[in-house]
């Protein structure tokens, strides 16, 4: 089979690699730098950024982000899994309205919904952290629903009937037959929902009103303010690295 000329393959490939790598390099280099004198190709290595990040209450902020991600996943996965079952197996019809409604948050700007909800909080006496969790869950549900939906769509719905014929109860059929089959999708859904909570900035900013200090809030405050590159980069790496590590471990495990 004739192929593209080497110029296209190598030149194009090299440009693509540079395009994807270059934007990540500044935080990687600066997070391990004390200073970067003008004219030097590489910075003067050091850990001042991490020391300052620790003093900037990075650890409690990372813990808050973790808890936020876990709570969002704990709510969005079960309700998304139920909806995904109905949509994937088309139980009682195709449900076009529910299918559309459960995709809608993908189109809606999070900042606008956060403002609308925030205006109501004072009137409804809802605590801010609860409202943050509720709205983040709304934005996580499309992912959890549709990830589980495609797992159900790829699974023959008669699998539970067959288990029932062999004597299993309805609960047993779901628990012992269906759940193991869709378990990978449930984990993927949990990862996506966790990501929504872990990486959110604007909903926490608007509804949390500066009182719920998560890791992204610290990153944004440092990036927009001080001009302190080592601090900004250390905080940014602390937010991104666990996700990248989890993903790479996941890839290795699947192999």
């Amino acid at each position, binding site marked *: *089979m*004739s*192929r*593209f000329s080497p110029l296209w393959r190598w030149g*194009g*490939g090299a440009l*693509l*690699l540079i*395009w*994807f*790598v*270059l*934007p*990540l390099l500044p*935080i990687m*280099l600066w997070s391990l730098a004390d200073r*970067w004198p*003008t004219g030097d190709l590489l910075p003067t290595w050091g850990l001042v950024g991490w020391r300052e990040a620790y003093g900037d209450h990075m650890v409690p902020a990372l813990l808050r982000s973790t808890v936020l991600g876990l709570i969002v996943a704990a709510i969005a996965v079960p*309700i*998304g899994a*139920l*909806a995904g*079952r*109905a949509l994937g197996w088309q*139980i*009682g019809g195709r*449900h076009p309205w*529910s299918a559309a*409604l*459960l995709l809608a*948050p*993908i*189109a*809606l*700007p999070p*900042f*606008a*919904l956060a403002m*609308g909800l925030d*205006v*109501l909080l004072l009137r409804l006496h809802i605590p801010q952290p609860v409202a943050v969790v509720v709205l983040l*869950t*709304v934005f996580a*549900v499309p992912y959890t629903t549709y990830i589980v939906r495609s797992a159900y769509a790829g699974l023959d719905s008669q699998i539970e009937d067959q288990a029932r014929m062999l004597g299993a109860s309805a609960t047993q059929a779901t628990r012992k037959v269906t759940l193991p089959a869709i378990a990978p999708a449930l984990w993927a859904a949990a990862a996506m929902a966790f*990501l929504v909570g872990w990486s959110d*900035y*604007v909903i926490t*900013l*608007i509804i949390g009103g500066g009182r719920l200090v998560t890791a*992204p809030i610290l*990153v*944004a405050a440092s*990036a927009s303010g001080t001009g302190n590159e080592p601090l900004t*980069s250390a905080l*940014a790496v602390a*937010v*991104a690295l666990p*996700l990248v590590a*989890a993903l*790479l471990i996941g890839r290795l495990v699947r192999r």
Partner: protein
Amino acid sequence: MGSLRLLAPAALLVGIVSAISIISIALTAFGLMPLVGQPRLSTDAFGALSSDLWLGLRESFVIATTSTILALILGVPAGLALVSVSRIRAALAALTSVILPVPHLIGAASIGLLLSGGGVLPRWLGVAPSDWPALVAGSFPTAIVIEFAWKESAFIALIIAAALSSRLTELSEAAAVLGAGPWQRLRRVTLPMAAPSALAGAIIIYLYTLGSYEVTWLLGRSYPEALPVLAYRLFTSIDLTARPQAAAAALLAILSAVAIAGVGIAALRRVGVLR
């Protein structure tokens, strides 16, 4: 369990929270839910803000359009490279899947450190900060577009690779046997196979970039502001009368998103992705 009981928790949560948020934004924008004083139906917020609103809307559409186009220009070839027999395939696959979970805020922080005067790129190129073009906070939202296109081109690459992985080799070999050269196979076989996924991805990116706050705020200029940035600044203003104006900007962002989603769904129906 009946289908309604399965769908109800998710549908009620999404439906009720979205509806009350949008209604409260609309009521606030039209003066019916003031922080202080009597509710009074008015369009003052839109009038007081008209030029800023249109400039903000235009800025948001410029950002969304250029980001989406650039994400496709870079993401489609990357997706093709992911399913081709090439030596960079493994590196590219690892990179794109690493980029996917990195939050946009982190990308924006890093690209700010890359492209600003005194950033990493001018340092490496040996350009003095004063001679470096204003890519961050300049008159064109260059850094914003690059951040969006960077992350979303990885997304496009992965969905295109997923769409092509099944039958491409087979069809491509058939075309080669029939005498098609590499460019002809690209145009007649590969791109038509990738097009529906690319379209769906482009719509998702367009909607995301239109309504995203943090990248635009961190890397953008102070005037004119994109709609989300304008809305948030007014929302947090100490002048309480700015609230309806903030809501007006947010409402305009919601309506734009709904309009674009409508166009997108119609386009997906046309190419047969949606029934």
